[in-house]
């Protein structure tokens, strides 16, 4: 037995996994997913989060009810109603600062990841997951599942798929059921109050109205089997859960 032949086996084999974005342009790097960890990106995201949280507190008197219901440390999905661009920023603000790099709001790839400036904002500030809602929805769902398999990742999803145009609630799409049926991943229903009044679709600057985030009890759909009807059922169940958090008494 020569020493050179078995050199690699003498020591337990090391695993090298070079960065996957080595030869990519900046735009490609920002549009790609999963993203490689970049310390500069983390620093920028944390700074941006501090600014956004201060803005929410001071300008919108942002309030979170039921924060203790978030199972921080585990993987989970937050689902919420979608009224405004403020929704994502509010939901991320509910997550402890040290966990935001592992919180991924699903963002429409065709809208939020077009060109350099918007991709930079969506990836650095929002930490968005580029969701291909038209052609390759299934592929993006596989990506989401992969993500949730690792402990401590948070997925933020708006199952309505788009922002409401008139403030009325939309219908939850069955994709969310496909994602969570038969898994033990907790789903946290959230309802954000006041975002439509502040920044509806089409407006370009938020009004200083109060925002309240209501966080509900987590649900699990581990005993559901796959099937179109099941997905539909889960989606409407979550829809009820989210909109039941809406306070009935108008102030």
């Amino acid at each position, binding site marked *: 037995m020569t020493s050179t032949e078995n050199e690699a086996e003498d020591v337990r084999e*090391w*695993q*090298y*996994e*070079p*960065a996957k974005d*080595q*030869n990519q342009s900046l735009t490609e790097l920002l549009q790609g997913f999963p993203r*490689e*960890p*970049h*310390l500069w990106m*983390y620093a920028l995201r944390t700074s941006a989060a501090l600014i956004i949280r201060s803005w929410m507190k001071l300008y919108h008197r942002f309030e979170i009810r039921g924060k203790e219901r978030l199972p921080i440390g585990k993987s989970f999905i937050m689902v919420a109603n979608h009224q405004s661009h403020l929704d994502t920023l509010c939901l991320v603000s509910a997550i402890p600062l040290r966990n935001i790099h592992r919180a991924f709001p699903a963002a429409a790839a065709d809208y939020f990841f077009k060109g350099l400036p918007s991709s930079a904002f969506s990836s650095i500030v929002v930490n968005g997951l580029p969701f291909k809602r038209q052609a390759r929805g299934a592929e993006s769902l596989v990506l989401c599942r992969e993500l949730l398999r690792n402990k401590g990742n948070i997925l933020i999803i708006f199952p309505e798929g788009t922002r409401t145009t008139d403030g009325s609630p939309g219908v939850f799409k069955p994709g969310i059921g496909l994602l969570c049926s038969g898994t033990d991943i907790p789903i946290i229903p959230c309802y954000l109050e006041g975002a439509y009044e502040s920044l509806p679709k089409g407006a370009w600057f938020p009004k200083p109205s109060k925002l309240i985030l209501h966080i509900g009890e987590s649900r699990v759909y581990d005993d559901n089997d796959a099937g179109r009807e099941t997905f539909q059922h889960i989606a409407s169940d979550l829809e009820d859960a989210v909109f039941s958090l809406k306070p009935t008494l108008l102030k």
Partner: protein
Amino acid sequence: MEMVDPVLGRYALVAIGLLVVAGFILLGMRLAGKNVASIWQTYRGWLIMAPLLLITLWAGRVPTILGLGLLSMLGFREFARATGLHRHWWYTVSVYIGIVSLCVLELMTDPRTGMAGWYGMFMATPVFMIALLVTVPVLRNKAEGQLQLVSLSIVGFIYMGWMFGHLAFLANSTNAYGYLLYLFFAVQLNDVAAFTFGKLFGRHKLRNNVSPNKTLEGSLGALAVSMCMPWLLHFSFPHFGLIELLLSGAIVGIGGQLGDLTISAIKRDLGVKDMGSLIPGHGGILDRLDSLIFTAPLFFHMVRWFHDLY
């Protein structure tokens, strides 16, 4: 006081002269119908790097140390991204802290001697850094696979941080311009000579398992050129005698090529062609600095042995 140090001025003239001549040669080759696209890109890289280097040196000791510190961090970043260490921020941040500490020590005054640069502590940094890095698994309460990360971090710090840091420490010397410019110039010329001699006379492989394109002929040719350099550039260090001149040539001629080959061996093991893609036509920072990393400490201690830094 003069605007430009005479040694720096001479090197600037030599650099401009060489770049102009090389430009004309490239132009000639192009007109002769040869494909010079890749060499052209390398040349364009030099057109940017050479002035950047000269201006930083001209700006003085502090910008030079800070600039080299930045290069050191970029070099380590490349190493971390090529090995996968970049996914473990405890380790990378520790090494970055180590590199920043090196910069601080280079900029400080030695509290005992009052000289620029805290020599003793600079030389002792590996002790503290290795102690810090082997402690990381304990702090994180994690054992599995950590030895690889610890080892990679130590190599990264010692190589990209500490060994390369000797170059920045040389900026504290009274003869800083001569030493630094000689190293930059001779090391790069050594690379070019190895490439040229290899292309012209290359027959025998030098180290086929490490870097398949390097040849014995190229290596010997580069050594011959490097041995002449200290005499041609004697104005950089007029106080050098025969032994120092011989050693200066040998350090660049042998050390420079070893530096190149060591990075090649690392790249081969990792299975990457270039360490990065920061400089078009040159690859990454480490592909450009590999020889300097190796020669800087050897030259530094040679100078310090014979003449002290100040």
